[in-house]
């Protein structure tokens, strides 16, 4: 080991950081180190990265068209070297459809996270900081949503909004923000007691400023972990909606919808339904492993 890396490590691991940047880098370094020791979490991370890469380069990776097949020659072929996962009832290559479909899965997950997490954060931090009747009202609403059956509620929302991938995203987002709000509120309650919040308040910062720029950033990391853990659930719910014909509409190669299609042939041509289900399984397992690892790395308390 060269002295230079050793000194860099010392600089990162010092318990007396000289600057904000050093303290921040040190925390990142230790987080990454803990995380990379966790082999399963690394496996999850690599799989998620692979999913992202596949989604980006889907057009290049897919060996055949995901939307059109040859009905005369390639209908319902079993897995072979030419078609690794076989072909479906319209002669389309299932591997290609799964590759293109990864985009839909990734998009759903990102959109739900982008919609639900900030909503939960704002509700939770505002409730926690404001206290009083604002807190009571917001938390009562959160509790009501928490007590609802999420899949059924998402079903009813999609039924009302009409089937389609956007509406599925909205429905899932509407039903998945309450846990984030609860978490953010719990963290806010501890943060608001701290001296530095009192200092900021004495400096004359407005409540909104305190919430937005002094409390919310501190809640973000735990919410991110929670969102990562929830991603598997989001993927499964989206796939379930797709399976019921309420999510992405044909001919979109959404994995859940592909299973619904393969269901018609499942007794004789099992691979049509097997492959997309395996894809859902691998991706949500990866998100679960990643989320577990992130939580252990970021929250030492939880990882006893």
């Amino acid at each position: 080991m060269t002295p230079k890396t050793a000194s860099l490590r010392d600089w990162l691991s010092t318990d007396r950081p000289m600057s904000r940047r050093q303290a921040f880098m040190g925390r990142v370094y230790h987080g990454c180190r803990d995380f990379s020791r966790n082999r399963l979490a690394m496996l999850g991370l690599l799989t998620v990265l692979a999913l992202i890469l596949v989604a980006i380069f889907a057009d290049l990776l897919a060996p055949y068209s995901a939307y059109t097949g040859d009905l005369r020659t390639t209908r319902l072929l079993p897995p072979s070297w030419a078609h690794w996962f076989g072909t479906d009832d319209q002669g389309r290559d299932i591997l290609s459809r799964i590759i293109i479909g990864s985009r839909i899965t990734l998009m759903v997950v990102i959109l739900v996270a982008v919609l639900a997490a900030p909503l939960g954060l704002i509700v939770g931090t505002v409730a926690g900081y404001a206290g009083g009747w604002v807190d009571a009202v917001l938390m009562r609403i959160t509790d009501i949503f928490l007590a609802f059956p999420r899949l059924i509620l998402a079903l009813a929302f999609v039924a009302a909004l009409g089937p389609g991938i956007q509406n599925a995203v909205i429905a899932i987002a509407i039903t998945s923000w309450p846990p984030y709000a609860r978490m953010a509120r719990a963290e806010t309650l501890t943060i608001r007691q701290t001296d530095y919040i009192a200092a900021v308040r004495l400096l004359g910062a407005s409540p909104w400023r305190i919430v937005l720029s002094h409390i919310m950033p501190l809640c973000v990391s735990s919410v991110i972990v929670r969102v990562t853990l929830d991603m598997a659930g989001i993927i499964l719910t989206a796939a379930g909606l797709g399976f019921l014909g309420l999510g992405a509409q044909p001919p979109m190669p959404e994995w859940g919808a592909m299973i619904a299609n393969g269901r018609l042939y499942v007794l004789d041509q099992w691979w049509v339904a097997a492959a997309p289900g395996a894809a859902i399984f691998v991706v949500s397992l990866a998100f679960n492993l990643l989320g577990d690892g992130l939580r252990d790395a970021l929250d030492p308390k939880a990882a006893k």
Partner: protein
Amino acid sequence: MAIPDPTAAGVTPLSAVATRTAGQRFTPHAKSFGNFLVVILLTYLGLLAVTFFIGRVIPIDPVLAIVGDRAPAHVIERARQELGLDKPLYEQFYIYLGKVLKGDFGVSVLTANPVMTDIKRAFPATLELASLGILIGAGLGVPLGVWAAVRRGKLVDQVVRVIGLVGYSVPIFWLGLMALVLFYARLGWVSGPGRIDVTYEYTITPVTGLLLLDTAMAGEWEAFRNVFSHLILPASLLGYFALAYISRMTRSFMLNELAQEYVIAARAKGLSESRIIWRHALRNAMVPLVTVIALSYAGLLEGSVLTETVFAWPGLGLYITNSLQNADMNAVLGGTIVVGSIFVGLNLLSDVLYKLLDPRTRIR
């Protein structure tokens, strides 16, 4: 290897179940019975408000659904008045509340029956499925979790963890399909979709609607076996999903209890290890566990929607999805309210149970 922290569980397909943990009560401030009653009323009111909202913002015009889009303007106007859609929203909500409280969810467009009649017919099927599911899930999940906690870090622990992770990650409808292919089509161990073979369908008179009980009471053991072979596969699937959650939580509660001082004291007294585990630690862990099991049960009632679709199980879930696909909003909302009410009820019940079982949380 990282040990997952189940108290932060948030990864289960029984999503709503996992959003709450034993440390995070649903009614944290409910200090008195009156307060608790208000919480119940508010929650149910919220549920009805949401379903009312869903029913009123639908793009599918309820008037058009009845009279058709070729109806002349005066027919549409009359239908609108008869449905009460010309009144202000709060008045409509008030009328809606009154109807729902009487169990009147309107008439299903699809079956032409009152929705309540359909639901009454479908509910026992779901109840039977979810009940056997939770029996399997809790019956295996609790011992597995205890075992994993006792042999912490050992092979058993890892295996239980993997079982749980797979349960959190696998799409239930896909697993159901694959299980059907394997156990029904290939191996022929179980019967296929549906609740009972047509041969037996009209030989038994429904008393409870739970076919296992009905056939057993009638002494029709052949039919009983048939019902069981239809039921066991979907129930095992649901049970597996409950097991994933229950075993994880059991492990965490047991680890918590085994680290307590009273366990050391019991060891010092020379009690046998099995007595410490099963009589001392598990009894204490049982308090939060009961609520976890109640929540899992609620989750299974909901989670059966997808399972029922796969297994053509004529329960509430299949009823809701069938109605959905036919834009039968009365039936969808009626089903949502019933499932939602049971779900909310079990949620609240688990809170009450928690308070009753744990003397420390009892109101002074």
